[in-house]
């Protein structure tokens, strides 16, 4: 029982970490209609920044300043914001598919830079001396994981409450107006480029924060953590959960990650020992099947977007 509980604590922590990234993506796509296909790029920036800033110095690496973890985390958010500004300025006038291709390209470039710039990132060998927050307090796995889960619950709550507030504000309504009919919004005097850039940057900061938390939790970072599959996973979480709804983003995070990992555990039980190798292929099939079936029954996601979100909409 203890083992199961311990695993669930770990599982939930990872779900919450991905949940923050999904909420960031939700802000970009769900509310503003920006098709960001390079999610993993910001995830990588956040992850590597916290490692470079807070890891202990190592021979051969030019980073690793050994700063406190909180500084590393804030640094990750700042660097993600800067990266998003640069990428945003370049791509914000693009729409739909074109924005998708451009952002996908930047994410691939970021991963390849991480792979090749060994002096900064440790290259393909990865960076191993990543500090975990308050690791010195306890060496045992279970108390530390409980602490990290509580930390993640706090972070996720702050992010969720913050996002809900700004989405129900005039700023949030402009985003939705831009998503629905940009020409009309511009005709009403709204600066489309400015608002889209703001949404892009705020979303990217959240995704970068998520990446930083992930790397802090695992304690090891390598370019393989940031393959395009992660972009797909985060998108699946958002779409299955329901885009345009922050609760949907969190729920999607839980459901999709449970499908992804649970299918593997299920295969171990269902498949006879001689066919365990083929079980992996079955797992991939099962993941795809469950995602498709969920979307067939709930095309708008499990929790669709709420139609009316203004506090004052019901007023006279």
């Amino acid at each position: 029982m203890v083992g199961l509980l311990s695993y669930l604590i770990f599982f939930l922590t990872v779900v919450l970490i991905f949940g923050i990234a999904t909420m960031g993506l939700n802000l970009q796509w769900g509310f503003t209609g920006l098709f960001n296909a390079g999610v993993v790029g910001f995830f990588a920036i956040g992850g590597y920044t916290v490692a470079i800033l807070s890891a202990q110095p190592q021979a051969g690496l030019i980073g690793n300043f050994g700063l406190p973890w909180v500084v590393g985390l804030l640094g990750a958010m700042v660097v993600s914001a800067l990266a998003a500004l640069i990428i945003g300025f370049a791509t914000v006038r693009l729409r739909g598919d074109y924005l998708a291709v451009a952002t996908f390209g930047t994410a691939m470039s970021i991963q390849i830079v991480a792979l090749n710039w060994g002096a900064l990132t440790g290259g393909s060998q990865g960076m191993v001396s990543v500090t975990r927050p308050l690791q010195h307090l306890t060496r045992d796995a279970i108390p530390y994981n409980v602490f990290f889960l509580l930390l993640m619950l706090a972070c996720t709550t702050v992010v969720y409450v913050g996002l809900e507030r700004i989405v129900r504000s005039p700023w949030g309504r402009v985003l939705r107006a831009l998503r629905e009919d940009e020409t009309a919004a511009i005709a009403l005097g709204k600066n489309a480029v400015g608002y889209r850039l703001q949404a892009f940057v705020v979303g990217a900061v959240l995704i970068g924060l998520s990446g930083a938390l992930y790397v802090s939790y695992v304690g090891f970072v390598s370019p393989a953590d940031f393959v395009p599959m992660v972009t797909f996973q985060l998108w699946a979480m958002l779409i299955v959960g329901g885009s345009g709804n922050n609760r949907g983003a969190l729920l999607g995070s839980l459901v999709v990650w449970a499908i992804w990992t649970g299918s593997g555990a299920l295969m171990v039980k269902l498949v006879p020992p001689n066919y365990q190798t083929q079980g992996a292929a079955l797992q991939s099939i099962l993941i795809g099947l469950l995602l498709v079936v969920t979307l067939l029954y709930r095309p708008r996601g499990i929790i669709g977007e709420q139609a009316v979100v203004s506090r004052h909409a019901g007023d006279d």
Partner: protein
Amino acid sequence: MKAYYAGSIALGALLALVQPVAAQRTAACPVKIGITLPLSGSLASVAKATSESANLAVEHVNAGGGVKGCPIQLIVRDDQNQPNVGVDAAKYMAEVERVSLITGALTSSIVGAVLTAVAVPNKLPLVSSCASAETFTKMAEEGRTNGLFFRLYATVRTQAAGGAKATIDAGYKNVAMIYPTNDLGTGVATNYTRVLESLGGKVVAAVPFNENQPSYRAEVNQLLAAKPDALLIVAFVQDGATITREWLSLGGTQNLILHNGLRSKEYVRAVGAKFLEKAVGFDNAAVAGPGADAFTKAYQTKYNTAPNGPCILPQYDAIIVSSLAMNIAPDLSGTAIRDSVRKIQDPKGTVIGTGPAAYAQALALIKEGKPIKYVGATGPVEFDRNGDVTGPTLVWNIRNGELGVEKTYSQEEIATLLQKSAK
């Protein structure tokens, strides 16, 4: 609406919970060993062969007496070569399935993540069958692994040294090389260059490539411009075949030096045997002896194909070594197993080979408290204080489309080469 809401939370929780409930039966038998392999993705063929080797080992162990009177059972999880999936799979195996140790872990990204996130916190040994990166040697030296990391695969230093010597022996002086931008590639490239230069050779071009691309024309053109005597290709089959075909069709020399990732019939078929007659390959060698021969025969009988591939032999040894250590250990806690691993390499011990009969003999000796020395499919297994092994290298070739072994460089020769190049 509420029903769907509730239903989906149930779905999410169900998949995470339903099977673990069944795993709660806390029985001592069978003893579980977790293995995480990249069964889907670009390394699938390597992973499949490795998994078959693991299954063969489990069969032999169970036929020879198992662990502490119980049979062993392999829990196979696909890590999809993605660390977040791999860490979750390892964590599940550690905490819910309650495995006694974890093996497999073919790539360094998986090893790194599983080591720091699961093996060290949960105090479980991680016996990697194929990790070649030097990162983990450094980690062990810094004390970050708590001695829980072991690997059965000689680090890239050994392979690269053998490759460099094979190059010089074949008469090539100016070599161009192409290598993937992963831990294996950069490791082989750095060490090969150092040893080759200490032997009087020269690397005229070193071109990295990103894996899984449809074409490598740009890289091949860079290599051709350097006009080398020979080309060293470090790659796995798919990319290696693409590179070789483009190299040859653009006029590159047939003097190829091939890394062990290409030691496969699929590669020979993909490129064409007639272009590979002059190719010189290098690989980690098993000491040609009864241990290696017995394993090869058993593998051949069971799977109808020779065990050619980077991780097959080390994976077999990983499971046998783990099982022997678990028998020697007073209990099956991670730290006890860790402390017993080096007891299988006692220099005064009776030599134990591969196969169920040898395993049964080992168990009998362990029961009497007598020392054993395991000489397995990869030769004598001797872990140094960081959990690494060294070993001899062999030179392989392709004649008439068949893979063959040309010669072997002993452990001592390789060690001398490495010492010489370190100056």
